[in-house]
Structures are given as structure tokens and as C-alpha cells.
């Protein structure tokens, strides 16, 4: 699965995107954020407050309860500030 990061999530992790193999038990967006947060200091810094993080699966906004099954690209980013 491809993960894409934007804005300060991208900066703190130090990557714009990466391919990952999800371990068993990572079923929802919430699981994914918890798993990522445990992958190291940079991930921990980016995902300190997972409740404010926004997620899109294949370019559509989703809640943290959304299952990841079938997702090709999951984007993880801060609240949007365009306009």
C-alpha cells in the first residue's frame, strides 16, 4: 500500500511517500495511525495527536474508523488551510 504525507506530517516524518506492507491486525485508519506512530521518533513526532490528523483513501476523505481493505493510496495530513 502506498502512503502519502503532506505539510507538517510530511516534514516531521521526512518522507513524501512510501510503500508499506501492513502487519496483520492493522484493519482501520485508526490502527494504521497507531502502528505508524510506533515506527520511530519521526513518526511519533508527526502523529503525536492522531485525533487531529486527516486521512484520505484513494483521494476521498475518510473517518478514522474506515477499513483499509482495498485501499491503493492512503494520504495522511494536517487539517487543510487552503482558500
Amino acid at each position, binding site marked *: 500500500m502506498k502512503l*502519502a504525507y503532506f*505539510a*507538517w506530517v510530511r516534514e516531521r516524518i521526512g518522507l513524501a511517500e512510501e510503500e508499506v506492507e501492513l502487519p496483520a491486525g492493522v484493519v482501520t485508519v485508526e490502527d494504521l495511525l497507531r502502528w505508524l506512530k510506533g515506527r520511530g521518533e519521526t513518526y511519533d513526532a508527526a502523529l503525536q495527536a492522531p485525533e487531529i490528523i486527516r486521512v484520505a483513501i484513494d483521494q476521498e476523505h475518510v473517518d478514522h474508523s474506515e477499513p483499509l481493505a482495498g485501499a491503493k493510496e492512503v494520504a495522511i*495530513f*494536517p487539517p*487543510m*488551510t*487552503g*482558500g
Partner: protein
Amino acid sequence: MANETNEPPTSPPDMAFEPLIRVQSERIVTDAVVGPLTGSGSVGALVTFTGYCRDEGGRLKALELEHYPGMAERQIAKIAQDAASRWHLLGCAAIHRYGLIAPGEEIVLVACTSAHRGAAFEAASFLMDFMKTRAPFWKREHLVDGSVGGWVEARDTDTAAADRWHRL
């Protein structure tokens, strides 16, 4: 687009026009966008909104707009479709810039046309509220002293402005 049989008869018809959606780094030429929207005799109202980059009291050299290519266009198109399903619009355009934007330059333009002013005013406001909260763009400040400042924080007032449409 075919009419859905489950649509209540009072709802606006499916879009009779293709909204103009653009995500670009170049300057936005308002007249070039608005001209084609207003040529027809059926248009009685045009409402445009342009959002500009402020200098924040002389502190700011530029705003840097990061975006998620693909999703940005897709989400803006969805917002425009929502607007067209809520109001009787004759046309609409939504253009958002990315990259470095200097104070005084435009960041975003929305334009809506309708037969009467109410629909165009409300739809333009709706489009802007959701462009701010659903379109994947992020602003970062570049300061006059040459440093790169922080990411602009999302404002609760923007979320509240978008939420109010759910209560109408």
C-alpha cells in the same frame, strides 16, 4: 447526467453545465474566467469571490501553498457538484493556486452565475467554506527576513462556517 428518479421534484436539476475547476501555479485572470460564464442571456447574476495573500503587517514575503495533486481537483469538483445540486446555478468556476504567492496576489477565485442573485451569492459562499475545509491545500509562511515560518493553523471559525451549511 440522467435524472435520478428518487430526487424530490423541488430539487434543482442535475448540472446542465460543466463547472470549470483548475488547480494552477499561474496567476488567475478573473476576466478570462468570468467572461464565458456571463455570455448568455439567461444569466441574471454573477457573484465572484477572490481570496488574496495578505502581508500580515509587513511580516510576510510570501505564502507557500502545498497541495495534493489529483485529490485537490477531485474534491473541488465534488464541492461544485454539491453546490449545483443545492442551488439553481447556470455556471460555476473554482480555481485555486499553489506554489509561492506574494502579498497582493490572488490565491483562490470562485464564480457562480444564476438567474437571480440569491443562488449565486449563497453558492459562492458555500463553495468557499468547503474549499477551505475539504480541499487538500496547506499554507506556510515565508517571512521578509528570509526565514521559512510555520504552517498556518486551521481555524475553528472556518470549520464552523462549513458546518453551518449542514444545519440549513
